[in-house]
Each structure stands twice: as C-alpha cells, then as structure tokens.
C-alpha cells in the first residue's frame, strides 16, 4: 500500500522541481548557507493544521494545484517541503490533532471530550522553559477540541497546558445580546452535529480570555459579520493574539475542509482554496509583525488525507475511513529564518515527528513523544 504513496511523492516532487526550480535536501545541504546564523536564540513557532483532512489530488498533485495557488506561488519557494508524511494513528480529526500535539498516536474515542493521555508540546514547553499560559495559545474552530491544550498525564497537565480559544464559543458569547447574524460561522463539523450549550463557568472563562487578549466584542462581532467561514474567524483571532499577546507558541487548527463529509466536492475544494488563502495571509501577518518578523518558524500540514477514489470501502474524497495509503499520507511545509528554502524531502516521515522537532527548536524535551527529529529543518 505504500507503493502508491511513494508514486504520489514522486509526482509532487517532480512538479515542485519544475515549478520552483528546487532541489532535494541532500543536494541543497551543500549549497545554501543557513540564515539561522543570524537567528536570535529562541524563535517563535506557529503550527497550522491545514484543515480537516485534504488529499494530494486536491492540493499538490498536478490536478489539485488549481486549488492552492498561494501556497504554490508565495509559500513553497520559501519552504522545506516534506512530500511523504504518514499518519499511522486513528484518522479522526480530534484524536489525530491531539496526536500531532503530543507526538504520540493517541487512541481515545474521537467523539468524546477527552484530554490527550500523553503530554502536549504546550506542556513540555511551558514546564521546561517556565513559560506562563499566556505564552502558548491554541485556536481551534470546533467545540470538540476543548481539551486539546492539556493532557491528563500524571507528570504534566495540572495547569501546564495552553490557552485554548474556540472562536465559535466566543462568538456565541458575543452574540448573547446581539442579533444572531453570524450563524454561518457557528457551523460545526458535518459529522459532529451536536450543539453543546455554554455553561456559566465556561462563560466566565471566555470573558477572562477575551480580556487577556484585549478583544473588543464589538470589533469581534463586526469582523465576524464580514467573515465567510469559521476558519476566517480563527485567522482573525490568531492575528489579534499575535498583535496583543505575541505568544511564543501558537497552534491553529483549521477545519473548514471537513465540509467534504457532506459529499459536495465543490464545497470541499472551495474550502481548500480558502484555507490556502488563510495560510498565505497568516505568513504575511508574521512578516509584518515586529514581534514575529524574521524570528518565526511556521509549520503547515494536514492532519491526514482522505480516502482514495479507488478504495472500494470508501467514497473517495468524502470521508477518511478506510485507512488506505492516500488517507494516511500527506505533506508538511516548514519555513522560517532557520529553515532552508526551496528544498524537498522525499524520505517518509511520520506526523508524530513534528513534536520532537518543535521541542528541539523551542528548547524543551518532548520526553514521551514517539516521533523522530525532522533533521532537515534543524
């Protein structure tokens, strides 16, 4: 089954070489000097999960490139690009994202509000570097991601986690006394159509969070009225947090693409193009913000792919249920001042390799992670 993913990697690599004139990691190691020479000791890190499962066919494969114009034109030339990132865990969004954050394949029930059992990168960083919660933020659109910021590991957890913002909850709160005209942003995952009411305790906590990030509810609502999707709202929150709090570690989970579960191919590909734009805009925000410009590493990757058109047990792009090679194999793009530009890495890596790599860059020890270092970006 991994033969197919290997073939896919080759087609991506060939395109990237022809489009951007780039070489492989091995070739480039001997050529370009690292810009990391001028790097301050502790860079900032932003991770974006490229929303809700995206296949090669609709991203970097030749037939998919029409949907990601800005990744191709603006970001790829500045990035080290891994062509084969394999997720060997459970292909459910919450549990897979938790796995990305812990560097271990988590095995809990995807649909339950459960904290990861292994420590997250947020906890490693905060404990080892003695950082406050305000220095580590997670922005996730879906209510199901409430617990992703902190594990229940006995040696970690206990208030060592990230500050987690769910923009939809903020919007619900902001809308409390306003006209409910932002319904399009409260859309949840097609497969999780359960509405959970905000408890009084959660409302207090949201008020505190809004205060911490100096977020005016009026401004937030005004922006929400102009946004077309939950992920655009997440971008707004991310840009606001960068402006007002400037955390060292920011994790953004995008999710619009998961509209694919409704079976409408046009909505799925529109969401990919929207996500493409969000990622490019975020990179621009990084470059224009003095707290981040020139000292921020950005990692972009889908949590996993979606089923192959040819898997008889699936229904193509609609779901990610078969566990076939294409649903498990995806890509990762990394860029920043200490990361080589215009390089592809063809060796297979795993999605759990992200955490030890981030830990290395952030100067902490991801001791329970099962992944290996992505040495090409260190």
């Amino acid at each position, binding site marked *: 089954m991994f033969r197919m993913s290997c073939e896919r990697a080759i087609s991506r690599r060939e395109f990237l070489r022809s489009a951007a004139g780039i070489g492989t990691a091995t070739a480039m190691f001997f050529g370009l000097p690292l810009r990391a020479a001028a790097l301050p000791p502790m860079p900032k890190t932003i991770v974006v999960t490229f929303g809700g499962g995206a296949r090669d066919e609709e991203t970097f494969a030749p037939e998919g490139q029409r949907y990601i114009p800005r990744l191709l034109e603006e970001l790829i030339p500045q990035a080290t690009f891994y062509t084969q990132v394999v997720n060997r865990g459970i292909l459910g969004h919450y549990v897979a994202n938790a796995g990305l954050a812990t560097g271990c*394949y988590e095995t809990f029930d995807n649909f339950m509000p459960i904290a990861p059992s292994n420590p997250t990168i947020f906890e490693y960083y905060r404990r080892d570097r003695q950082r406050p919660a305000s220095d580590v933020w997670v922005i996730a659109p879906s209510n199901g991601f409430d617990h992703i910021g902190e594990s229940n590991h006995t040696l970690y957890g206990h208030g060592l986690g990230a500050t987690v913002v769910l923009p939809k909850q903020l919007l619900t709160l902001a809308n409390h006394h306003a006209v409910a005209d932002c319904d399009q942003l409260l859309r949840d995952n097609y497969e999780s159509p359960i509405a959970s009411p905000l408890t009084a305790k959660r409302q207090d906590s949201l008020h505190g969070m809004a205060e911490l990030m100096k977020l005016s509810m009026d401004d937030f609502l005004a922006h929400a009225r102009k946004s077309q999707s939950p992920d655009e709202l997440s971008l707004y929150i991310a840009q606001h947090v960068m402006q007002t709090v400037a955390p060292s570690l920011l994790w953004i989970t995008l999710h619009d693409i998961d509209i694919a579960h*409704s079976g409408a191919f*046009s909505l799925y590909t529109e969401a990919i193009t929207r996500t493409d734009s969000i990622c490019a805009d975020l990179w621009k925000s990084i470059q224009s913000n003095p707290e981040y410009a020139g000292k921020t590493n950005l990692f972009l990757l889908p949590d996993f792919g979606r089923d192959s058109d040819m898997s008889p047990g699936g229904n193509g792009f609609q779901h990610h249920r078969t566990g076939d090679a294409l649903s498990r194999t995806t890509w990762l793009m990394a860029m920043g001042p200490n990361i080589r530009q215009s390089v592809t890495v063809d060796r297979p890596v795993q999605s759990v390799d992200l955490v030890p790599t981030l830990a290395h860059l952030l100067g902490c020890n991801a001791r329970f992670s099962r992944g290996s270092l992505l040495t090409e970006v260190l």
Partner: protein
Amino acid sequence: MIASPASLQSSDFAKYPSQARDLAQRYLPTLTRLPVAFLAVFLRELMGYDWQFPVERAETEAQLHTLRNRGDLPNLQQTLARFDSLPIAPCFQRTGWAAQPSRAVEEMTAFLWSAGAMDAFHVAGAAYGDQLAQIRVQQEKVRDRLCIVIVGRDATGEQDLFRHLRPHGICFENVSAGGGLKAVMSLLEKRAQADPVPYAHWYVDGGETHDSGARAGVNSISYGDLAPTRRNLLQYMVTARSLGSVGPEELRSRMMQMGPTQLGNSQGGSDEVLRHFELSVLKEGAGTQIFSTTFVQWTARELLRRARPDTLVLRYAPRQADRPMNELISVEDGEQELDPRGSLVDAEMGAYYTWINLNRLHGEENCRFISWHESGTTAIAVSPALAKGTVSTQTCDVEQLLHWSLG
C-alpha cells in the same frame, strides 16, 4: 469470557426479520465456525436479507454455501485466518451481541482503530473481496450494462468538463441538447421492456421525477419525491442535536434502527425492497438528506454495489446553496437558494465516481457509460465501441451519441 461464535444459538437471531432468521438458523453450524470479526460483518449484511435485491440474496446464499464448504477451499481458509488473527474486541464478551450486529461492528471498528489493527482488518476484507468476486463470476452471466449520467441542469459554464473521464473515452464538445432527455428516457424504457428483470433498470433524479408517469419495468427514485421522509429524518436529527447528549455515532446507530414506518416512507409503495433501499440511502449516506447532488451520487453507488443494474440513468439537479449546519438540517419549508454552478462541479465528480463503481462490476469491459451536460454542449462517452482519450468537435445530438456508444 468471550462469547465466541461457537456459543451462538438460534435464539440470538430471534429478532431478525423472518427470512433472515430462518437462513441464519439453517446455517448455524457454519456460522459458529467463523472468525468473530468476520461473523459480525457478515451477520450485519445477513440481517437485511428480507429486503435485499434478488442478486444480493442469491449472493448471500452462495456465500453461505461456500463458507459451509470452506474445508475444501484453501484460499478461503487462508483469508478467514486473517480475520482470526485480529485482536478480539471487548464487545464480543457480551452475550447476545449477535442480536445487534450493526452495533457490534461499530464497536469492533472503533476498537480495531485504537488497537492499530485497522489496516490488518482492511487487508483481510480485501482478501475476502477477492473471494467474493470469484463467487460472483460463477454466479452471474456477463450483463450488457449501460449507465447515463445527466449533469449541469441550469449551469452553463463548462470549461474542462469531465477531465477525469476524458482519458477513457471520446469527449464530444458540440452536442445539441434538443430532444436529449427524451432520447435517454426512451432508451431506458426500451431496455426495460426488452429485458424485464426485476430491479435491473433504474432512474434516479436529484429533483422531482422527470415525467412522473410510471415506466414499465423501471424503478424510479427522486430526491424531491422523498421530501417527506427526509423531513422526518431531519426532524429526528434536530431533536437529537437540541438534546446535546447524543453523540454522532450514537445518533447514527439510532437512525440505522429506524424503519420505513417510523419515518413515514411510503414512496416505494407496497414494494418493501424499494422502501428499505430508499431509506438506507437517507440513513447511511452522509449528506444525502441535505444535498441533492450527494443523494444522486450515493444512490448510484449503492445501486451499483447492491442491485447491479443493467440500465442506470442519473439526472442531477441544482442542490441548495451552502448554509450553516443548523439551517441545512432545519425542517422549515420555504424557498431555498440554489447553487447550479457548484452542483455542476459536484455532479462532474459524481459522474466520475459512478464510472469507477460501474467498473467494479463483473463484465466491466462491456459496460457503456455516457455523461452529458444538459445545459451545455459537452458529453463524454466511454464504450468498447469507441476510442479513448479523443475529442470530437463534430455536431451531434444525444440520440446519435447513444447510438454510437451502443455500437
């Protein structure tokens, strides 16, 4: 204690529909010797025996016959051994799990994912799929299948249409639409009359049924005609959503247990097989309740997988525009904004998936496949009688296209 297949009893099938119960009880000694992971999946299918299409029923019986003689079939033994080597899910410790095989399969797959054994389960499933293909080859004569997919009602833009299908057939870029629908429907009727096999000729519409007069020998399903059933199902989802206590998997399990009577589905009339099929499309297909394009694509997939028709005509209609989930599943009546352009994109992909599913059937080399943009000028025809990967700019109409495709 594991409630192994060996501990299965006749009483485990007491709540199965009558014909399924009789069949399970008749083959009890065979069933007790099967690996539990295989058995759970097999029983889930067997439980629907009373409402299966004729070809499915014949296949279920042929499978049972083959499984009874597994000792003489080393390849089958080897395949079943793959299922035997899977870790056993805790749900099988529950006495009486076989009474609700759907629930057991859901719990088992969740367990296999968490145990990292899902890949092995899929490999075992694919190996059994190969065995099943052999059973089909022995059982079925090669059919002369025809599938026509009409896309793009009210959508005019058509750049690069049918890009996935172009390498497999001739793309006609100058097709006159006049009389096209009539020609397709007339061919459908002719084929149904010439070979009046039950459930062999189908018409699926994403809007209201075209020209609603009944066609002899043709089974028709439409998104529009199923509106009352869809509404009842959505009402159930809205209620579950407002409770906030039923998770998506539990909701799905509950929906799966609902029958036509509970959902007021009388579209299939007295045809129980048809009524159950319609309901299964709405209950099991994600998005079939809210988007007509998904409804058509999923219905086609299920018909090709289950009924394996000789003639299948699909006609896509514009689906409702995207809205927030709570609005999409709301049951209020009213004018809906439509998205013809997005629907054309959906339908184009749906046509490609239908062609893939058609090619999964025995005798695929004789299949004819046509997709036609009814509000444009493009069509694609894939047929053993036609060249592959070519483009024709010759002016033609749909009737000619059908004639050339059928050779």
